[in-house]
């Protein structure tokens, strides 16, 4: 029987299966960071357990780490509770071991979902887990990758397995060519706008179609990253030459003859012709326009040439009150054109959009517009996803372009995506952000987030309001 990519990944990792479908699933790669691991390590200690396989663990500190003052070392983390969490991770990794650890201040440190692929630690055919919902990112490499809670982090540490039940499968096929100025981020938001934030609940999504195949690995990671915002724990894309080209030569990728053996296997990591999915969504890339969210859920999204919705026109009572509450929080009037909304801050970064291609897109827009960040914008932050991304961007001169235009060029980390460090919005401030969640208070208590692509964020910084990047091309 023809199998989906998900079927293949699932079947190749089942250690044992119970009658009700509950299975023990073997985990190849465990990514660990400072926020969701301390209680798991503590649990191991209390029970007198060890790591089942230390060399499955790749670790970094990213959520709490500052993006300035690295010359001050650990003292640069002003918040003593955050500092303790980072120090605790150091201590735990020293005591328990790992395959690789990129601690705070390391030249290769970065956002866990950026460094996994960058180091070749995420490989096709793997199961990849992490105590972070955006683990779906790694599915771009034809992996089964999803977020887990801290109890499960401890479970994987102690047993190398997860207790899991097979999800349903959803195919999201996007064919055609994206218009100039429209990116993987816009594809992701358009999918969420179409199926909703619970549209993929209970499913693993496979993204396919010519528009998906045409994406770079960076774009594919952006798309899979946002699968969780569509409710799906896992997003994935079949292996192809683009995947191979990205991985070849990376630190933990196989080398020499082993590379050829691996690639031969990886070529099978695609859905078979005629494989059956529980649900299918089809979209045309030509019809996707730059997206901007207007509300407090990623599904509250319109195209940049659209307007803030009018709750009066919503017939469903629950949905109407949801729109009203969101508009009140966001401080927006119904029917306002999106291009009339002014922003106070701009954030380019996060596990969604902090890779080299994202920074290139932002710099391209800045060059094209040839002006500085609008005087009405208090701050425009660019936070590269890792030390390696930062170094590459600097080698390409992108940092100069951005800094000369008035952007701040920071050290890597999660930063203002979730505002656990000092980078955050003040109450009432409005932000054009390349991150993944526009929930109430996500970027700081009372902050107002509009999710956009890096190109759209850069344009918003220069114009001081949302602008249609298609007009620049």
């Amino acid at each position: 029987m023809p199998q989906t990519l998900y079927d293949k990944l699932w079947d190749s990792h089942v250690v044992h299966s119970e009658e009700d479908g509950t299975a023990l699933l073997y985990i190849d790669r465990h990514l660990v960071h400072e926020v969701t691991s301390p209680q798991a390590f503590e649990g191991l200690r209390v029970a007198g357990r060890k790591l089942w396989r230390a060399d499955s663990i790749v670790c970094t500190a990213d959520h709490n780490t500052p993006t300035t003052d690295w010359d001050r070392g650990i003292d640069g983390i002003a918040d003593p509770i955050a500092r303790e969490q980072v120090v605790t991770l150091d201590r735990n990794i020293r005591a328990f071991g790992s395959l690789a650890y990129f601690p705070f201040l390391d030249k290769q440190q970065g956002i866990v979902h950026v460094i996994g692929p960058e180091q070749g630690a995420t490989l096709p055919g793997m199961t990849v887990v992490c105590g972070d919902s955006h683990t779906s990112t790694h599915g771009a490499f034809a992996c089964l990758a999803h977020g887990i809670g801290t109890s499960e982090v401890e479970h994987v540490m102690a047993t190398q397995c997860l207790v899991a039940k097979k999800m349903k499968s959803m195919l999201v096929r996007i064919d055609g060519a994206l218009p100039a100025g429209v990116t993987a981020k816009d594809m992701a938001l358009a999918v969420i706008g179409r199926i909703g934030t619970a549209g993929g609940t209970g499913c693993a999504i496979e993204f396919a179609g010519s528009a998906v195949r045409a994406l770079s690995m960076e774009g594919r990671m952006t798309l899979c990253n946002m699968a969780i915002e569509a409710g799906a724990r896992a997003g994935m894309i079949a292996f192809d030459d683009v995947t191979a080209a990205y991985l070849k030569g990376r630190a933990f990728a196989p080398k020499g003859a082993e590379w050829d053996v691996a690639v031969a296997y990886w070529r099978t990591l695609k859905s078979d012709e005629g494989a059956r999915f529980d649900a299918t969504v089809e979209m045309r890339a030509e019809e996707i326009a730059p997206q901007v969210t207007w509300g407090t859920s990623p599904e509250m999204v319109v195209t940049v040439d659209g307007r803030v919705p009018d709750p009066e026109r919503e017939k469903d009572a629950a949905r109407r009150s949801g729109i009203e509450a969101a508009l009140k929080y966001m401080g927006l009037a119904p029917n306002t054109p999106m291009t009339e909304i002014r922003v106070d801050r701009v954030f380019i970064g996060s596990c969604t959009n902090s890779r080299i291609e994202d920074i290139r897109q932002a710099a391209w827009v800045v060059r094209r517009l040839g002006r500085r960040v609008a005087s009405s914008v208090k701050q425009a932050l660019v936070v590269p996803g890792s030390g390696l991304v930062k170094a590459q961007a600097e080698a390409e001169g992108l940092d100069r372009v951005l800094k000369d235009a008035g952007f701040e060029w920071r050290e890597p980390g999660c930063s203002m995506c979730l505002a656990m460090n000092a980078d955050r919005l003040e109450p009432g401030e409005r932000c054009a952000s390349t991150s993944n969640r526009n929930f109430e208070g996500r970027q700081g208590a009372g902050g107002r987030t509009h999710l956009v692509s890096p190109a759209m964020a850069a344009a918003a910084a220069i114009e001081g309001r949302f602008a249609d990047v298609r007009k620049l091309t």
Partner: protein
Amino acid sequence: MEKFVQHKGLAAPMDRENVDTDAIIPKQFLKSIHRTGFGENLFDAWRYLDTGEPGMDNAARPLNPDFVLNQARYRGASILVAGKNFGCGSSREHAPWALQQYGFRAIIAPSFADIFFNNCYKNGLLPIVLEAGTVRRLIDAIKGFVGYELVVDLEAQTVRTPDAEALAFDITPHRKYCLLNGFDDIGLTLRSADKIRAFEAERRARHPYYFNSRVA
């Protein structure tokens, strides 16, 4: 893990959809390296009028009188009934920890986000999916009658209302077994250690490139 067999408790309504984990427990409280102490900051941004930070004396903070759980009639509530897609967003287990430590034993909603749903079971907190119309009816009944109590019977897989209506819910046998006995998964899984070792050895032989052992 605390066992869950049967629970009778006061129900409280959370009449909104897409209640996300950032709302359940805001990020500033995730800096803790402990597993406890989250209950006082459950729904922090909605519950208090000021901005909460770790280490504050929460008893001294101004409460938001409009927030549902601050109403006297819902004091001591242990069953939360909410709109669809409850627990969406991040994987933070701090969300079920906060709910459980506040005093909730069960959450009823038409649907839950997958990771949150899974995390609840690890903490003796029972997430119950009931049909949307039924949840709507329950929320209206809770709002309409002060002191509205529900009985959650895991053995029978029912939620019983004060007028003795029994609403059936699904749960996998594995999860039910763990909750009824208060078992956590690690001990159970390690009973299969030999199977895991055998699987691992075979995988290592077939795909050695997944077993890079350059341990730092």
